[in-house]
């Protein structure tokens, strides 16, 4: 034995044993930190979702006011609506019609709404007109007018009309406003608050699902009527452009790079380039869009066309990388079998390799589209944060997008009302993304099982 005391097994075992409790403590601590990290990460997910849900769910119900609106000829002094006379040109009829509509618009429809409100209030309830009209949303008069324009025969009749309660009324009914605050701090006057409580009791004000969130466009003057329809259509157009352009371009270039391109410095450069492009901050794509699409090509500002193109370029690397990975994963045996049968390289790729990778490409596409759907920053730079109160019928009309709408709403001064509404918009956005991802997962498992 040439060694020191260490060779004595007993001493060695004693030393090992001496350190054991400390080492096991270290092990437990380490494990604890691991669990802590997991809990923190899961906690963040839970916190984020509960926070959004807690704030957003109330915004899916909204206060409606059901009124008996009398289209009183006394209040509505207006000519009969013009008829399309035979021999009259379309232009002349439209001019006459517009003239009539202008006349209708000049009437004081607030008087009609006010009368209906007073009619619903208990007899002799003291409240002045200005205060009374704060109960309904400020677009109530337009809604009533539109009814009349659509059906001029209503003159002299009474119709039951569902109107939106104003944002303040909605807040009051839902208890979002502290009822103990003094008059000076309340948005609504004391009689208006009292009347709202009466309306709520007698069933004039009811809570209903906020369909207007999905059927209305954005509105600044009438917050309670602000909806997502315009943003949804804007997002729809952009996603359409992304799918039409990014998928063929991405899959095509992945096929070229993976299957056809000669292994050269140039191909290497393209590969590095695409990997880098995938990590370029999204806002840089926005700058590209602003300089190239808007400033050089003169594409319309705020239009889904420019937004869709920017998002296409942004999504492209994701799809290319995922498709290449899928192509790489196809077994060489399949390729050799196809080539061995006398198939050309193109035939091998399009008849044999591509069908096998279809599930992965589909998944990558859906995930890429979902990512593009949630992107905000580049859209701000190409003017998509403009206030747009119309539904874009084509991709070259002004529009906004769902995430941008969230950005616009969170900045609204009427915090008390728009915070829930923003959360509701976020829920809609997240619902879309979760649906897309679920579809991706579902399709993937379905298709892979079949293959």
């Amino acid at each position, binding site marked *: 034995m040439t060694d020191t005391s260490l060779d004595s097994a007993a001493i060695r075992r004693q030393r090992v044993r001496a350190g054991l409790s400390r*080492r096991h403590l270290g*092990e437990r601590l380490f494990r604890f930190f691991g669990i802590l990290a997991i809990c923190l990460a899961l906690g963040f997910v839970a916190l984020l979702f509960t926070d959004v849900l807690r704030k957003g769910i109330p915004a899916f119900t909204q206060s409606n006011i059901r009124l008996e609106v009398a289209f009183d000829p006394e209040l509505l002094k207006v000519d009969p609506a013009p008829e399309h006379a035979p021999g009259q040109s379309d232009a002349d009829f439209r001019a006459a019609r517009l003239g009539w509509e202008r006349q209708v618009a000049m009437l004081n429809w607030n008087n009609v709404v006010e009368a209906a409100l007073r009619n619903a209030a208990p007899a002799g309830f003291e409240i002045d007109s200005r205060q009374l009209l704060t109960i309904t949303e400020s677009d109530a008069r337009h809604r009533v007018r539109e009814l009349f324009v659509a059906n001029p025969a209503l003159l002299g009749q009474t119709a039951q009309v569902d109107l939106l309660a104003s944002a303040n009324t909605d807040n009051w009914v839902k208890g979002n406003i502290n009822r103990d605050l003094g008059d000076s701090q309340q948005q609504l006057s004391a009689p208006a608050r009292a009347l709202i409580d009466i309306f709520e009791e007698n069933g004039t004000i009811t809570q209903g699902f906020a369909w207007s969130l999905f059927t209305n466009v954005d509105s600044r003057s009438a917050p309670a009527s602000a909806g997502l329809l315009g943003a949804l259509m804007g997002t729809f157009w952009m996603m359409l452009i992304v799918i039409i352009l990014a998928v063929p371009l991405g899959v095509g270039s992945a096929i070229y790079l993976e299957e056809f391109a000669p292994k050269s410095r140039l191909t290497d450069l393209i590969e590095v380039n695409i990997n880098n492009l995938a990590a370029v901050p999204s806002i840089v794509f926005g700058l590209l869009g602003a300089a190239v699409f808007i400033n050089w090509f003169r594409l319309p500002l705020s239009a889904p066309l420019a937004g869709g193109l920017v998002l296409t370029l942004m999504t492209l690397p994701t799809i290319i990388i995922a498709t290449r990975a899928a192509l790489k994963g196809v077994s060489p045996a399949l390729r050799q079998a196809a080539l061995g049968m006398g198939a050309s390289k193109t035939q091998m790729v399009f008849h044999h390799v591509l069908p096998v990778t279809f599930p992965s490409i589909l998944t990558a596409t859906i995930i890429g589209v979902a990512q593009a759907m*949630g992107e905000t920053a580049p859209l701000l730079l190409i003017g998509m944060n403009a206030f747009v109160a119309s539904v874009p019928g084509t991709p070259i009309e002004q529009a906004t997008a769902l995430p941008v709408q969230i950005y616009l709403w969170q900045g609204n001064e009427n915090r008390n009302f728009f915070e829930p509404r923003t959360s509701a918009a976020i829920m809609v956005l997240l619902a879309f993304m979760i649906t897309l991802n679920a579809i991706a997962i579902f399709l993937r498992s379905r298709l892979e099982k079949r293959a």
Partner: protein
Amino acid sequence: MNTFIIAGLLIVLLGLAYQMGWSKSRALATPNGLRVHSRGQYHGTLVALWTLIPAVLVLAVWAFFSPGVTHWYIVSQIPTDVLTSLDQVGLNQQMQRIRDLASGFGVTGELRPFEQAAGENLARFQLLSFLIMVAAAAGLGILGLLFARRRINARLRARNEVERFISWALIACSAVAILTTLGIVASLVTEAFRFFTYVNPLDFFFGTVWAPRFSSTGAGDAGQYGLLPLLAGTLMISAIAMLVAVPVGLMAAIYLNQYAHANVRRVVKPIIEVLAGIPTIVYGFFALVTVGPFLRDFGTAVGLNISATSALTAGLVMGVMIIPFISSLSDDILNQVPRTLRDGAYGLGATQSETIRNVLLPAALPGIVGAFLLAVSRAIGETMIVVLAAGNAPILRGNPLEPVSTITVSIVNQLTGDTDFTGPQSLVAFALGLTLFIMTLCLNIVALYIVRRFREQYE
């Protein structure tokens, strides 16, 4: 309406072309048992391509020039004396009237004689030009068809020609990615260069004051454009984000990779990855309405003055956003460390945590460093969280509890709603973008290089 007619005609033509190519190929093959080089569908496709390309070219030319030509034609229909009396708005109205007359919609008011004539002429002109265009497209397409059909014989390498077309199309697809990069570089560099004609680059890169004046407040003073306050804010927020994301993300990855039961892993991993799929605007809103006020109240409770929107708020939430990024990259990298190394440590009697800390992590270090760099580049380029939650106060200061501003926030502020790019106020966004692009590019290249080297080491 016209679009549908054209599309319909095109489809009919293409079907015809394919059918003709195919049937000629069949005719070659069947009677005399000739050995035909390519199969019928390739002949069909080739003929269809020869038909499609000329027709589409004609359509493209027409689409490009027709608005201009129509415009010129309408103007030519307006008498000179009327024309000179009109301003731009009047001209547009006059042209719209003529268009309305031509389309049969009609106009209100009194019809002037030249308008009537112009409307009728325009209608005729539009019909004629449409017919000529359709005839030209169809004619060229048919010429192409006939030419291609004549070429069909047993030896024609139709398959190779079709495949060559496909490969050129594929090359064109890959060119888009390159063009995107070139476009980014070109637009950033040219616009940034224009900015530097207003502001000295030294003042930009080393200036300590960020105070751009908006063009409306006075043309003379352009304001000060010092990058350093923004850079400091960006780095501070990124550092806070990494302080949150690295320990949590890495420990979560280690736990899931080394300790957790397969079932736990199957459930927890996707949940954490949900964090990566949430749009950043949602994080921004969360930071603004929940985290910020919470931190402020917390600060008040412990006697600290924490701003609701501050580097801390933005950094914390950004850290949460980056957690899944770090954990999934680290997980991949830990998976690549060979099992034999772990076994070696276990075989010596190392505990699991000793194995991880002393063997696994050192072996995985290069890869993990690469992942961190990628995460930093993400944090630097992140926009919406900081736009909402960082407080937009471009002041050079070191206290993370106070509002700051970042490069990305300033890009948004300077460029939103303004696309004239006339003054330094908006052009500075491109100089900032260039700075951001170069920073992230360097980080990405280094990171991707490290990760790649790491992968090769264990392959």
